[in-house]
């Protein structure tokens, strides 16, 4: 085995576990929900296997990350490959925790896991090139910033999973897919609850990021491309919350806003640092 890519087998194994969990979750919701005259919760038998597979995926990805960390001597904070693997790990981990603690949300796996798999496909197309750790990254606030950011994105993802169900239910063929889930009204409530949680962690991420930026670049905020994108993300959640309680917006529109916030967060994470030439860019 080439020492250069020693983490890859673990990564692939982790992705396989996620892939099987994804197929299983989609298969589970796509089944008919009638067994003769009896209405069944078709997701129930798959609940544990899906959780188990995601947990195994998280474990395998953590080995991949540890392996790489030991090989190149620093954490997965710098290039796109590292960011994607580390998000695959943290999104899986935090989603698994939510899935475990809030059973009613479990069928969201059929929406959430395919989204996680978009990252999985992306990471497979990227060279696992080694990165160089910039001197300004030796800072404890980096950990705090990244940690809060991971929780923020994960809660956005859960929100997007719930909102996704509200939207998918509008499609005739998928109407019955999520029959075991509560009504749109409940899902909408849950989704926005997760968005408020996301706002809390987004705020913490911005604060920790500002402290780090002050240390690293001698200014706490400079409207660089990544900061502006992150601020717009924060503002979009606040805007969504206020629009929702001051106008009677249709649920589908509310759900689309949640999905849009997630897409914006996705772009902020995986797009902006690599498009912009700002100091914030992965490698300084």
């Amino acid at each position: 085995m080439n020492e250069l890519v020693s983490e890859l087998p673990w990564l692939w194994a982790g992705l396989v576990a996620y892939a099987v969990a994804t197929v299983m979750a989609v298969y589970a919701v796509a089944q008919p929900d009638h067994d003769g005259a009896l209405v069944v919760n078709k997701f129930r038998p798959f609940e544990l296997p899906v959780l188990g597979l995601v947990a195994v995926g998280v474990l395998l990805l953590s080995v991949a990350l540890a392996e790489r960390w030991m090989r190149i001597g620093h954490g997965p904070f710098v290039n796109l490959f590292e960011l994607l693997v580390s998000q695959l790990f943290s999104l899986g981990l935090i989603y698994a925790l939510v899935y475990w603690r809030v059973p009613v949300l479990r069928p969201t796996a059929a929406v959430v896991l395919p989204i996680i798999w978009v990252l999985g496909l992306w990471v497979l197309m990227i060279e696992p090139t080694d990165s160089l750790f910039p001197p300004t990254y030796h800072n404890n606030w980096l950990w705090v910033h990244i940690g809060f950011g991971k929780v923020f994105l994960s809660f956005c993802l859960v929100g997007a999973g719930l909102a996704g169900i509200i939207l998918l239910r509008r499609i005739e063929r998928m109407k019955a897919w999520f029959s075991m889930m509560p009504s749109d009204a409940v899902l909408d409530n849950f989704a926005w609850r997760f968005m408020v949680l996301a706002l809390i962690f987004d705020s913490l991420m911005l604060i920790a990021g500002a402290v780090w930026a002050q240390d690293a670049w001698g200014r706490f905020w400079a409207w660089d491309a990544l900061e502006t994108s992150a601020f717009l993300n924060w503002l979009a959640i606040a805007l969504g919350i206020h629009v929702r309680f001051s106008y009677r917006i249709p649920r589908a529109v509310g759900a689309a806003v949640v999905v849009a916030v997630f897409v914006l967060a996705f772009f902020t994470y995986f797009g902006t640092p690599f498009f912009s030439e700002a100091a914030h860019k992965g490698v300084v």
Partner: protein
Amino acid sequence: MVSVLRALASVRLTVVGMLLLACGSVLSYGNPEAVSIWVLVVPLAFLALNLSSAIITNPRIHRRKGLLVFHSSLLGIVLLAAIGRLTYLDAHLEIINGATFDAQSLLDLKAGPLHSGRLSDVEFIQGRYTVDYRPGMSRGATRSYLQVPDGEGGWREQVVGDDTPLVVNGYRFYTSFHKGFSPIVVWTPNNGQPEVGTIHMPPYPLFDYRQANRWTPPQGEEIKFWLRLNTGISQDSAWVLDGQRATGVLVVDSGEQRVELQPGETVVLSGGELRYQSLTTWMGYKVFYDPTIHWLFFVSVLGVLGLSYHYWTKVSMNSVAGVNRRSLDEPGQNPTDRSRNGGAFRSAQDVVKL
């Protein structure tokens, strides 16, 4: 009066203000210098007015402690940011090894109209510095050695660099990647007194290939300087940039003459005599002052705590009593009564755990 405040407090105006702020941010995206600050100031001022009115008149905010703390902190952040803009200072500094900081030597100085810090009291002496480079010319740790007053009439050494600034009277000095070399020269004009000066060469190793500068003595022809350095620079292996270990030949070009000087050597030029005394280094700093930064941190953390408290109380109140019962009763397209959902929506406790 109250009715005016109520009108100003409308959450619909909040939505408008937020949309305006989003537009202002999009305009400033990645290029705030080129865009008028007003695209941000106007929406922020509008939101601050709207929010102050809402905090006063809207019981949905001021009766709920968490929301009150959160929204007040948002207002606090806007106010502090405004104070920060009025009192800040932002500048660059390039200082030679052995020189004492002089407030007059700041470059690209920008300051708020109400800036009034004690910059002239800032004292430190620049010493040597080292910068680690890894293979591929990737910059590693910077260590800049300074002498700072020890408070007892003497000096003590302080090492700054990367994310460890020198902080004096609220002024923060951050090493920048701009740093380089300066040959020290002595110019003795014909029939005049010798004068010592330094030739400030461009940043190194950024402009490794262009270590040149020019100077015209008071009476004499323009002199072109070129510094041929030996620093151990390497593309392929790790090396340390250390001015004390570097050597440099100063190539002097004036009129018809072109000579290469080693430290200690002299050349006679038209109008005077030039002696290349020694090679030293200069260090670049970003200088930053904003008296609000600690307050901003404190107020924003307080705001998040307020929002978290609000969330906590809302979730624990709503989960059992409100949301679930309401939504269970609500006629949705997918009824959620237990017989139909097969028990997936097990109990309100599932939700409380959230």
